[in-house]
């Protein structure tokens, strides 16, 4: 099957970095802070590359929306085995307001343009934790969706997805084209090896503007304020059960 897979990769603040809120409470500090590929997007790329290695799909295209630096994230995906990249250039105010709705419009437009059979995304990004882009993209395209995937099996023109849900595991069978979002246990992303890192430098990254795709980036959301979570108060140690009871009474808890 000459299937093409589109994988979305988001550039986020590296998960090991300590987040600091800007003094004006409009957002978090991103200048000079280490960024990397969203861990769930890594898992998505790995799954796509695995499918390609099994010769079940023909081409893996990595997509990222953002300023110039988004190309680094695409390069990482290329180093992991993606064939080519598409950088949707969004910067400045537009980038600040870029949320799941805008990204899913972009992905939907690209999916149609690139004749895609499968879109694989991370289940959520670790900066906003929205968990909406995959679902919205499927809705805009009117495609079936298999979210929180912990296993993906291609079966002809259908794809079987085992989903992680609160009660356990749910198996769904989707007719392609479809949207899948990757959960933690789907796979362990590979290290990009040197030969592939070298090859990746030569792979193509096309730059596209959202306007060319006919996408309107207006946001209907306004971030009013960003605050740090309240500082955790120190606990109190007591020596005896009697003391515990009297302290609880004092605090009005009993």
């Amino acid at each position: 099957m000459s299937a093409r897979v589109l994988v979305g990769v988001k550039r986020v603040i590296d998960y090991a970095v300590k987040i600091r809120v800007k003094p004006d409470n409009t957002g978090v500090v991103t200048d000079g802070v280490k960024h990397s590929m969203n861990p769930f997007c890594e898992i998505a790329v790995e799954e796509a590359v695995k499918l390609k290695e099994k010769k079940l799909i023909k081409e893996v295209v990595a997509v990222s929306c953002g300023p110039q630096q988004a190309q680094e994230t695409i390069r990482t995906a290329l180093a992991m085995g993606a064939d080519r990249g598409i950088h949707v250039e969004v910067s400045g105010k537009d980038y600040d307001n870029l949320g799941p709705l805008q990204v899913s419009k972009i992905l939907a437009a690209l999916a149609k343009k690139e004749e895609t059979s499968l879109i694989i995304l991370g289940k959520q990004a670790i900066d906003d934790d929205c968990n909406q882009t995959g679902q919205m993209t499927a809705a805009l395209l009117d495609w079936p969706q298999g979210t929180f995937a912990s296993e993906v099996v291609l079966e002809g023109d259908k794809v079987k997805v085992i989903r992680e849900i609160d009660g356990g595991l749910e198996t769904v069978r989707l007719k392609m084209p479809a949207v899948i979002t990757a959960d933690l246990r789907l796979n362990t992303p590979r290290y990009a090896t040197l030969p592939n890192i070298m090859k990746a430098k030569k792979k193509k990254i096309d730059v596209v503007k959202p306007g060319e795709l006919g996408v309107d980036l207006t946001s209907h959301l306004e971030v009013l304020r960003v605050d740090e979570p309240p500082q955790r108060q120190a606990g109190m140690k007591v020596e005896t059960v009697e003391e515990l009871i009297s302290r609880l009474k004092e605090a009005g808890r009993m």
Partner: protein
Amino acid sequence: AVLHVVDRFDDGSLCLVVLQLCLQCSPAVAMLDRVPSALGVPPLGLVALRLSRGIHGRGDQTNHAAGNRVPCRFPFSRVSKQDLAFFENLLPGRTIVDPDVLMTHNVDWMKSVRGSSELLLRPQTTEEVSKILKYCCERRLAVNPQGGNTGLVGGSVPVYDEIILSTSLMNQILSFDQVSGIITCQAGCVLENLSNYLEERDFIMPLDLGAKGSCQIGGNVATNAGGLRLLRYGSLRGTVLGLEVVLASGKILNFLTALRKDNTGYDLKQLFIGSEGTLGIITAVSILCPRRPRAVNVAFLGCSSYKKLLETFQCCRGMLGEILSAFEFLDSACMKLLEKHLKLINPIAENSFYIVIETAGSNADHDKEKLHNFLEAVMASFLVTDGTVATEDAKIKALWSIRERVTEALTHDGYTYKYDISLPLEKIYQLVEDMREYLGDKAKNVVGYGHVGDGNLHLNITSHSKDQALQEAIEPYVYEWTARYRGSISAEHGLGLKKRNYIHFSKHPEAVALMKDIKHMLDPHRILNPYKTLPDQG
């Protein structure tokens, strides 16, 4: 005739006692003493003697076994009720006699040696340390200074009933100068805590080692610890600017200057750096710290031969020189142990040798370009067959843990015999190969890893359980091998208890004699960390 000391049993429950007559021993050593047992078995008097011929101490095979036998107890006083009362008065609540607490302080990290101290002291200030030592000096009580207790040569725990003086409560940072990068702190500061403190202020410690979560800076200085960053920032002998030391007499010596350059008289701090607690107790340190690098990259490479590894090193020096901050290696035997015991995944294809290269610089773009040029060069010339690169914190930690956790993996493989050797670079792996061939089936695994960029090999040999025959096969063969190529039998771990008698493999007798003179001058009653560092004889 020489009468051997019979070995201490594994679990420390009995130490058969020594009567040692030797042509070169002084009569003072030939003294009978009783050794209390950790399990409450009544002390024994003279029990066994073993006769053998030969000259004591100098690499004679028959007597060599004496090299790592337990020395006889020096005639120190024993802790009395009055002593306890004095300490309790001086350090209320910090004078510990609880046997459970003492147990952990009596045993080293590798669980290979155990002492029988019954008293642990936890001073908080230099004054308290001074009063303790003054008293112990007058009372002729032996003292074992102890920091994080992470040493690997049995130097940090008592041999007999020495009082343990722990610096754990001396953990205050005294000052930090943001402009010069000089930090002054007490000796009990844990290395990782200092690192965290400095990183918040955009600096880093000049040294880094696997034990950072537990080791204390006083101990690091006392053992002249090396570690993973020595290649870039040099040794503590260069980065330590000043010390505060308490001598055996209790006298406080303060040369805690925070000056980069000071050529006024003999540089006394160099005496105490690396003295392993035998010349004085370090109570405070001032260290010059480098700026935190803006860009850190780690590359994990695979080589098919040691020769290619060395050529990669040369290429690395040439193309990455000023940003290179670490060059470490491990062999495929290490990788197999990591996979087997810790379930770590090899990030690249299987190879004979693995290299960890770290670069640290001020500009991410420049460093990335330099690193990529280097990687292209070594791949194109087939010096390196495979590899991966990391810039993100999480991946960097993952790649480093492959090198840092080898020690841990070895502990799961059985009993480990550890050797920390300095050799000319070309010879390093030859030692591992020779040992493998020489020991054959006697050993379970023979692995090599370490700071190859510094010419420092960690040779480790495992067996299913403690094996005297294996140890006798390894030693002194490994030391003789090292001496033949003018290497060091202890590159960074020090001598402690386990290697004290092998000093002559790397130092001339005149040098050792001068060391003994200095020891005698600074600690005439030998109360500081006895039985360690300097050889029993010669």
